[in-house]
Each structure stands twice: as C-alpha cells, then as structure tokens.
C-alpha cells in the first residue's frame, strides 16, 4: 500500500505541511520509491512497444521471404530476366515488370524534378505574400490526393487526351521511330509516366520547399547585400545550402514513383511484355502484383507474385539506403581542392603585394579590381543581362507552378463535374450502391449511394487507429526521450525506410500473415484494418518522435529542475506542449490510410453489403472507386466520382485542420 503522501512540490520557501517554517518541503521516502518504480515501468513500456515494432518489421521481412521462397528456389536468378508469365505451365519471370517499373519511374523523375524545383523555388523565394500560403496549401493538398483518384482522373481525362492528340503528335514528330513508336490506345507506358510525374511533383516540391525554407533568411540577405538579384541570391545563398534536402526530396519522389500502384494499374494497360516503345502497353511490379495477387493459385504462382513484391521491396530499400549514403557524403564534403592556393601564391608574388599588412594602409595604387568608375561601368554593362536572367527565372518558375497545379485543378473540376450532384444528396451516404444502369427514354436509373463502403472504411480506419496511435505515441516517446542510442537511431532509420515501402508490399505481407494464422480472415475487415495500421505506424512513430524532439531542452530541464520525475516531464511537459504537432502527424497518417487502395483491396477484398463482421470481406471507398472507375454504367461512374469527391473532401479537411492546429498556438514564421 502506498500511504497518502504530502504534496511533493510546493513553492520554494513556502511552509510544507508539518514542516518547519522555511524548511524545504519534505517528501516521504516511499513516494520516491513509487515514482522511481513508475518511471521504470513507463520506460519499460515504451521500450517494449518499440521492440514490438522491430518484431513487426522482422515478421514483415520473414513472411515476404518465406512466401517467395518456393519461387526463388525454383526459378533462381533467371526469374529477374525472364519475360514469361505462364499460368498454364507455371513458368514465371519478372523481366517485364522490372523494366516497366524502372522505365516509368526514371522518365517520371526526368519530367518531375525540374518542374518540382521550379515550384519549390517559386514558393520559397518569389511568391508574393498573398499567393504563398494558398499555393503552399494547394501543393500540399495535391500531394495528398489518393492514388486511386489520380488514376480515375487519368482514365477519364488523360487517356483520351493521349490517344487523340498528344501521342499522334509526338509520334509524327518523331516519325514513328522507336523509342517513341506508333501512337497507341492511351493505355501505355507514356501515360503511366505522366501520371507518375503528376503525382510526384507535389511530393518533391513540398519537401524541397521545406529544404529551401530551412535556409536562414540571413543567408539570402547576405547575398542580396552583396548586390545579388533574387535569382543570384537563390543560387548563391539558398540552393547550395539546401541541396542535400533537395536530393532527399528527389529520392523520396523516386521511391514513391517506384512503388506507385493503383494509378499506374489503371492506365498502363497491364500487358506482360518487355515494352518496345513509349506508346506500348506494359506493367510494373506493383501493378502486376495488384492484378494477380488475389487470383493467384496458392503454390508456385502465388509465390512468384510474392517474389515480385520482394524485388520491389529490395529496389525501394536500396533507393532509401543510397539516399542516406548520398546525404552523408554531401555533408562531409569540403569545398574546393588545392589548386587555388598554388595559383594565389604566384599571383601574390607577381603583384608584389606585401603580406603582413594586416589592417594597415594598402597602397591605393596597388592593382585590384579597379577604381569605382571601373566598377560602375562594369556594372552597367552586366546589369541588362543579369536582369534578363532574373526575369527568365521568374517566368520559368511561374510556368512550373502552372504546370504543377493544372492537373490538380483538373482533378477537382472533373470530380465536381461528374460527382458533384451525387455528394449533395443525403442518401448518397446512407444507401447501398445502385444497380448499373444507363439513362434512356422510359428508363429511370436508381441513384443509390456508398453507405456500406463508407461504413467499411470507417471501421477499418478505426481498427488502424487502435493499433497505430498508441504504438506510435509510445514508440515516439521511446525514440525521443529514452532511445538516444544506437538502438533508437536504428529503429528511427527503420521507420523511415518503412515509410517509403510501397503499400502494396505491406498488403502482401498482411495477407500472408493472416493466411498463416487464420486462413479465413485473410480477406476481412480485421486484416484490412491491420494493414492500414501497419501503413500508418511508421508515420505515427516518426512524426511523434519529431514532435517530441522539437520540444526545447530548456523546457524539459526547467521541469526536471522543479523536481518532476522524468516520466512526468515526458507525459505532462513534452506531450502537452507538442500536442498539436502530434495530432497533426496522426491526422496526416490517417489521411494517407483513408485514401490507400492497395492495402484494403488485397486485404479486405470487396463487398457490396453492409458490414457483416470483422472476419468477412469488407468494402471501402477506395475499393468502390477502383471497382467502378471503368464501369459502363453512367450511374455507377457518377457514384464513383462522388466517392472520389468524398475522399478529396476528407483530405482537404484533414489538411486544413492540420494547418490550423499547427498555426493556432504559435507560428514560427511570424517571428521577426
């Protein structure tokens, strides 16, 4: 039993109950013991959770390799290059999928990087104040648009555009020669590339912008103070300092392109051949997994699909590791070689400038850059060119912004156009999906709604939150407060890598896990919810770790100095003062989960019915869109667009909420 203890803390100098006037407040020894014990329990709990997360990642690797082992053992290295996918004779290879993945991602990167950099620079260096915030919001939001919505948009808008105008034009321009080729159906490598570029531009732009913003303002002013134009100050003072952050942004964009699943699946044509030209259909690792995983017969065929997932995992992890190494090398690199020094010595000798003059007078006649008149005339001659460069810079950066925002605007417009009339109907949220029907004379189409899918999404998101929020918070606390050691850094790194793992691989893992433990629940709400939880987990851990770390050490120390035990400092001070940042991280993780299709498609399957139980297949909004995007029935397509609009509204609300939550208390950008 713990005896009731006197207040542990009271204002210094105030009399403690039962104590002498002016004496320090007394604390019974038993209370110290309890506090110490509580502290240990808390520490142990966070550590246990963190170890659990590592265990999950280990299980992730184990189940993927175990699932793929049959195929690895049977086909060997030939699997990587073989271009066969023959379900009749059970001969499988990954060649076309690997080629498709690498080609689409590389081309998308080539298109996206210059535009994204232009956007980032415009937002950080050029945008007038009234445009900056709305534009940043739009870019962040377009990074959050779910893959399935981009895919739907591409299916409706981009594919016809490609087929009718862009591909014929490009093809005739190139004379029909490879690698461009004859114009195709619009479902091809090129369209997939453009969709990927559209999707990674906001990602790269948003992260690069943060890298640019992180460069202190004084750095820009130092260049401006030398007489640099905006462009010159960006080049001299900002870009060089931000380049490691920009490199990280580009590589993260590459990672996203490599693993992008649903949108690519919807437009790439999904033919398993080595792509001969830009306008031929193909497939990527991710798209082929989604298309074949659920139907694959258990045995060597399923094993081969899982091996595709292992290959994709290997590529994305490799990209992440390369990124880290690159960043480290950049940080270590020192400026320049030794050539300048030698050259200067000779200059020095020739000009006869006496060394050791220090602050003393310098001969005004000594050769130098020239007198002020010379500087002025030189200046006048160069000014015109420099200003032309400056204007070109402004124009190009603005065009990049237009290019980056146009697809997002088109997505919103298309969704509102087709789904607008759906979402304003209350029954849209409560009714089951309509029977497919096209309006015709004498035919009245049933309207219907997405009620069961909305319900399924909410249930699975709830399950996901149940897993990822407590684990994420406790893991974040461990990493930030206790884990400042090799283990903690390794877990942090691991979580970063897991954030970059394509969700389709997570889905394959969760499916295999449930298959192993409970065969019947592999396609169920609980499996889907668990997959979404696994998807959210690395994001919640890392974002809460970052939020906790951003609490100033002085605040921690002042609480410790008041006599707070460490675990109380953590719960009261650290958690309390980083509340809004933590909530923001959780919300962003939830918004990613809400729009993710691959996980719920592979793990929860689909169902048109209202919720039937945790271990039965369950529908969700993204799956509803994916199932109906190509529907021939007008009312089903409209309902799918309505569902897309609902997803967009959720992203918008979460994005706006996160922004307000962060800004309401304290906005560091307002500090002078």
């Amino acid at each position, binding site marked *: 039993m713990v005896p009731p203890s006197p207040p542990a803390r009271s204002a210094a100098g105030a009399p403690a109950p039962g104590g002498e006037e002016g004496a320090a407040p007394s604390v019974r020894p038993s209370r110290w013991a309890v506090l110490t014990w509580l502290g240990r329990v808390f520490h142990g709990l966070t550590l246990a959770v963190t170890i659990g997360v590592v265990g999950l990642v280990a299980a992730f690797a184990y189940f993927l390799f175990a699932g793929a082992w049959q195929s690895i053992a049977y086909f060997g290295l030939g699997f990587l290059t073989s271009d066969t996918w023959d379900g009749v004779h059970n001969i499988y290879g990954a060649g076309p999928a690997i080629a498709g993945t690498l080609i689409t991602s590389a081309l998308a990167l080539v298109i996206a990087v210059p535009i994204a950099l232009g956007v980032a620079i415009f937002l950080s260096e050029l945008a007038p104040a009234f445009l900056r915030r709305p534009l940043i919001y739009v870019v962040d939001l377009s990074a959050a648009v779910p893959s399935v919505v981009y895919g739907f948009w591409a299916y409706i808008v981009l594919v016809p555009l490609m087929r009718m105008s862009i591909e014929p034009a490009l093809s005739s321009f190139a004379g029909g020669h490879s690698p461009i080729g004859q114009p195709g159906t619009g479902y091809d490598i090129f369209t997939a590339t453009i969709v990927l570029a559209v999707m990674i531009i906001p990602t790269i732009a948003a992260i690069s912008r943060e890298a640019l913003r992180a460069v202190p303002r004084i750095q820009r002013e130092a260049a401006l103070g030398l007489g640099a134009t905006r462009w010159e100050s960006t080049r001299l003072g900002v870009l060089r300092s931000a380049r490691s952050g920009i490199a990280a942004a580009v590589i993260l964009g590459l990672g996203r392109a490599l693993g992008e699943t649903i949108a690519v699946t919807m437009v790439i044509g999904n033919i398993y051949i080595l792509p001969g030209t830009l306008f031929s259909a193909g497939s990527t690792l991710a798209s082929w997994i989604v298309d074949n995983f659920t139907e694959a017969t258990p045995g060597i065929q399923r094993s081969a699909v899982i091996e595709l997932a292992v290959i994709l995992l290997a590529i994305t992890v490799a990209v992440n590791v390369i990124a880290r190494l690159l960043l480290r090398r950049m940080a270590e690199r020192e400026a320049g070689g030794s050539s300048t020094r030698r050259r200067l010595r000779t*200059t020095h000798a020739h000009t006869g400038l006496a*060394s050791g003059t220090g602050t003393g007078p310098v001969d005004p006649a000594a050769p130098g850059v020239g007198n002020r008149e010379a500087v002025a005339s030189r200046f006048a001659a160069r000014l015109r060119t420099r200003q032309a460069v400056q204007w070109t810079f402004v124009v190009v950066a603005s065009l990049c912004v237009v290019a980056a925002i146009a697809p997002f605007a088109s997505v919103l417009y298309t969704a509102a156009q087709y789904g607008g009339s759906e979402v304003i109907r209350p029954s849209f949220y409560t009714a089951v999906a309509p029977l497919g029907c096209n309006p015709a004379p004498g035919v009245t189409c049933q309207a219907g709604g997405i009620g069961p899918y909305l319900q399924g999404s909410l249930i699975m998101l709830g399950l996901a939150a149940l897993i990822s929020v407590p684990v994420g918070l406790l893991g974040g606390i461990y990493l930030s407060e206790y884990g400042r050691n090799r283990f903690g850094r390794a877990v942090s790194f691991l979580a970063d890598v897991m954030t970059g793992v394509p969700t389709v691989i997570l889905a394959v893992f969760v499916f295999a896990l449930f298959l192993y433990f409970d065969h019947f629940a592999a396609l169920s709400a609980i499996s889907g919810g668990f997959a979404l939880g696994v998807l959210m987990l690395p994001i919640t851990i890392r974002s809460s770790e970052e939020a906790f770390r951003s609490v100033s050490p002085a605040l921690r120390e002042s609480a410790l100095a008041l006599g707070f035990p460490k675990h109380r400092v953590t719960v009261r001070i650290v958690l309390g003062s980083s509340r809004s940042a933590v909530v923001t991280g959780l919300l962003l993780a939830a918004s990613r989960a809400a729009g993710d299709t691959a996980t719920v498609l592979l793990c929860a399957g689909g169902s048109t019915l209202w919720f039937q139980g945790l271990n039965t297949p369950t529908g969700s909004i993204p799956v509803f869109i994916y199932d109906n995007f190509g529907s021939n029935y007008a009312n089903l397509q409209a309902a799918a667009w309505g569902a897309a609009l609902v997803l967009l509204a959720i992203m918008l609300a979460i994005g706006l909420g996160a922004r307000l939550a962060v800004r309401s208390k304290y906005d560091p950008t307002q500090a002078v």
Partner: protein
Amino acid sequence: MPQVKMETKGLNAWYGRRQALFDVSLDVPDGEVTAIIGPSGCGKTTFLRCLNRMHEETPGARTEGTILLDGENLGRQNVVQVRCRVGMVFQKPTPFPHMSIYDNVAAGLRLLGVRGRGELDRGVVEALQLAGLWDEVEENIDAAGTSLSGGQQQRLCIARALAVRPEVLLMDEPCSSLDPIATDKIEKLVQGLKRRVTIVIVTHNLAQATRVSDATAFFYLGKLVEVGSTHQMFESPREKLTENYVTGRFG
C-alpha cells in the same frame, strides 16, 4: 565639416502595421564612422537596413521618405546597384556554406562579371588583406568559409563586402556574437577602413561606439533623439534622454 555621403529625410518605416521608424532625418558624413546607439527595439537595425534597401526584403515591410546617396535618391535607383554601392555586414557571420574562403570573397566579384583568374585573385587577396585576414588564411584559402572561427568568419564577411568596393559599409552589431579579442580586431579594422569607405555601425556597446566612431546618433522608440560628434554626444549631450542613456541610467 566633411561632406555628406548619405542622407535621410523624413524616413518612416513599418513592419506590417507596426511603425518602427518615425520621421528620421540624419546625415552620414563621408569617410567617417557613424555609430548608431539606442536600447533594444529602438529602430537602429531597421534604420541601417533602410540604407541599402534591405528593409524591403522583410515580408510586409515598407518605407516612406527619401534616402540620398551622394545626393541621388536611392528609391529611384536599381536595388542591385544600391547594394553594390552600400555593402552590409550582419550581426552573425554569414559566410556562404559549401563555399571556400576564396569563393566567398570572390562571390560578389563574380556577380559583377569578373571572370579572369588574375583579376579575381587580385581582388580576393586585396579584400582579404584589407580585412586583415590574409595572413591567417593564406595557407588554407580553399578550406570552407565556415571552418574559420567566429571572428575570422566575420572578417571574411567584411572582406566579401569590401571586394566589390562599396562606398558605404553598413555593420549591424558586427561584434555581438564575438569574444573580446575578436571584437578588438574588428574595431581596429573599422578604424583602419574608414579612409576607404564610409561606415555606419549599429552597436549595443557604448564603449565600442566611443572607441570606433566619429559621429554618434542616438535612437529611442523609433525616433532619432540626437546626433553629433561622438565626443560631444558622450561628454555634453544636449538632450536629457541621451545623457541618461550614455551614462547608463537606462537601456
């Protein structure tokens, strides 16, 4: 009396809605060091930043009134040209990271279009000598600018500003982040430089103002209270407010 190099007439400045400077009219004598003193938040730095139009880089900031450089209105000139003629050294050293010492000093010259190696080398060496840094960095001119000590970095920034031969050099509390020895070097440097370049220096440190400056201006709550020769300002100020400040009764 020396000639007037820079002159402000009825200068007002705002950050958003907050007015930071009220109707400041001040002459900066040519070839001298003018110190600007005053308690925190009195507009010293804002005033300095107006002199090379750096103030307008702050989001939401604006100014009214005229600033003349050699009798020409700054507001009508190209802002890039203004900053070539009026250089600036900041409170904290700001060498460009990822640039060597050499490249830091050469940065301004390259902006001006100086390309020839010989010319660049001469300009860099001369600027480093003027800043009293050449002897210390001659052997490792290719090391990163950020590898130097704080005081050396600040002198590197002075060299970088001097390399483009400005007519006026603005210094915003250049010693506030430095130790006494580094501070001493910068102060000596300031006195040595005034023959070549007019200097306006903002300082918190009254003793520093008496050591380095010829003229002193006292700002309080965004207004110019008094300006005069440094000797007069510290020995026999005309205003009671100035007397209270320079004798350490407040601020």
